[in-house]
């Protein structure tokens, strides 16, 4: 089992390295001169050259890469091309906000999808089961930002139950934080919950055909009892994989949701940086988001091993 973890960890580190190289070179080699963009098109060649030196863009690419990645390893993401401020501290703050958003979204998605998915599988031939499947099919087709827009129009503007947008730091005002986050959490969670419901349903349906559940039933357990006691652990293996993928999808969905609800997370930082053509900031944020995706898939792999004893023995 330790060997398995070791290999996985190695794959993670190598992938992270590969990702950093990919991001750096795509953003450096492809056309566009950040110094010229920063100064505007009226700038003289001398002032552009001077700024290139100041930004360190006149060094060989390899040196630039090594100094960037060396800094990143120490939490230093360099300075923004547009604001000249260090990127690292801001990125850290913004990432925390997004993490709150995503975690809330996951909780909502799980609360919706596990009971509904199990129900849809157990009653897959009854009206309720088919209804849940149909609803989840529709939920999958709704972009999260649209759910956000509709929630704002209805809950915040018409009924005035919750604030339409904005963000409050949880440490200063926990109640206000929750109030501001409920609609974003719902927008992210409802849509991802619909996706997850379909996977839970199909995973549980697969297990329901297995012999061990028939045995459990013949012992006298009721269908739901047998399923809860024996089936869910097995059904959770494919669901954990999907949940991992979903976590990454949620992180990216958060980029759009932060725009809808004006939340100062890493997503709005990214869209601002893209609008300003601030490649240094874009590079740092994209790397952190990709690192997050790689970390999740690494953790999912470890979770497999913990859930499935057959993998532990190998």
């Amino acid at each position, binding site marked *: 089992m330790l060997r398995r973890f070791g290999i996985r960890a190695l*794959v993670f580190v190598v992938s992270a390295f590969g990702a950093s190289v990919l991001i750096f070179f795509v953003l450096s080699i492809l056309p566009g001169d950040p110094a010229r963009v920063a100064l505007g098109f009226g700038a003289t060649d001398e002032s552009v050259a001077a700024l290139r030196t100041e930004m360190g863009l006149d060094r060989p690419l390899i040196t630039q890469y090594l100094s960037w990645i060396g800094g990143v390893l120490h939490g230093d993401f360099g300075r923004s091309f547009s604001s000249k401020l260090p990127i690292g501290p801001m990125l850290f703050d913004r990432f925390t906000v997004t993490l709150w958003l995503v975690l809330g979204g996951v909780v909502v998605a799980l609360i919706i999808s596990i009971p509904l998915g199990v129900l849809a599988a157990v009653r897959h031939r009854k009206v309720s089961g088919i209804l849940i499947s149909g609803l989840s099919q529709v939920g999958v087709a709704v972009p999260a930002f*649209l759910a956000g*827009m509709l929630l704002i129009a209805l809950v915040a503007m018409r009924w005035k139950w919750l604030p339409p947008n904005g963000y409050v730091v949880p440490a200063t005002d926990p109640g206000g934080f929750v109030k501001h986050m409920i609609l974003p959490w719902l927008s992210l969670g409802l849509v991802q919950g619909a996706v997850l419901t379909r996977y839970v349903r199909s995973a549980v349906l697969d297990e329901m055909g297995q012999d061990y559940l028939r045995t459990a039933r013949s012992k006298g357990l009721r*269908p739901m009892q047998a399923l809860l006691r024996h089936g869910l652990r097995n059904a959770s293996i494919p669901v954990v994989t999907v949940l991992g993928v979903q976590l990454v999808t949620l992180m990216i969905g958060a980029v759009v949701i932060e725009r809808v609800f004006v939340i100062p997370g890493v997503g709005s930082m990214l869209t601002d940086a893209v609008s300003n053509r601030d490649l240094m900031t874009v590079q740092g944020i994209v790397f952190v988001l990709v690192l997050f995706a790689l970390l999740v*898939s690494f953790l999912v792999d470890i979770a497999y091993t913990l859930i499935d004893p057959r993998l532990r023995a190998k």
Partner: protein
Amino acid sequence: MSLDPTARPVDPVTAAPGANRRGPNALLVIGAVIVVAVAVAGVVSFFWTPFDTGFTDTANAKVGMGVGGHLLGTDRLGRDIASLLMAGAKTTLYVGIVAVGIAAVIGTPLGILAAMVPRRYSEFLMRCTDLLLAFPALLLALMFAAIWGGGITTAMIAIGIATIPSFIRVVRSGALVVLESEYVQAARVAGRSRLGIAWNHVLPNVLGLVIVQSSVSYAIAILAEAGLSYLGFGAGLTTPSWGLMLQESQSTLSSYPMITVWPALAIAIAVVGFNLLGDGLRDRFDPRLAGR
């Protein structure tokens, strides 16, 4: 409870997982009808829309269905919503075809390759696939937008590249099954070249999977384009797009909700259509190859 032993209620525990297959044909038909409808609307919009999409009927701005000859009403500038939806269908088709095309054309041969080359090469290829998987479409599109500026072309290419890994994975797993089959063994014994086997045996047999994956990926591409256009990095102001319509309707949402509802319905129906088509086709093609 009835005493008639044959009137036993259906037991979900003993019911086979694949037993719930009464509906797929109906769903397949619904999916196909939706997809064809979107395609027809898009193609017709090349030649004809009820109103010009640039025409602003200022006297009839924000009106409801049927007013002033506007079938679905007008948006805040007085543009005809039905015409915008048709022209938006064109953009949706265009983005989807190019993005899915890129992914299928690059992903399918790589998937077959990954199934046929020796293990250490395929292992490397799959690790690269995993790495690319960590770059979702929206992230890649934003990265490209930072370099070239946002736009429909950047969006299509980014969505296409981000979709390659799912094609590689699906095609590889299908190709592995085909390669185990007896007819491929026979072809090997008969001295067929590896390229010949890939072209004549593997490709035709995984084509079903490619079509299914294309349909599912198409739905994802529609959502990605909508999200990018909403952020302002997709369709430009002159390109009609459902996502852009949504974004523009946000300011009028609480007072004129229908302006939002129409493009929202268009997106949701199109995505459901492509998903149903994909699911239905998956059931139709060899289920052994389908995987899950």
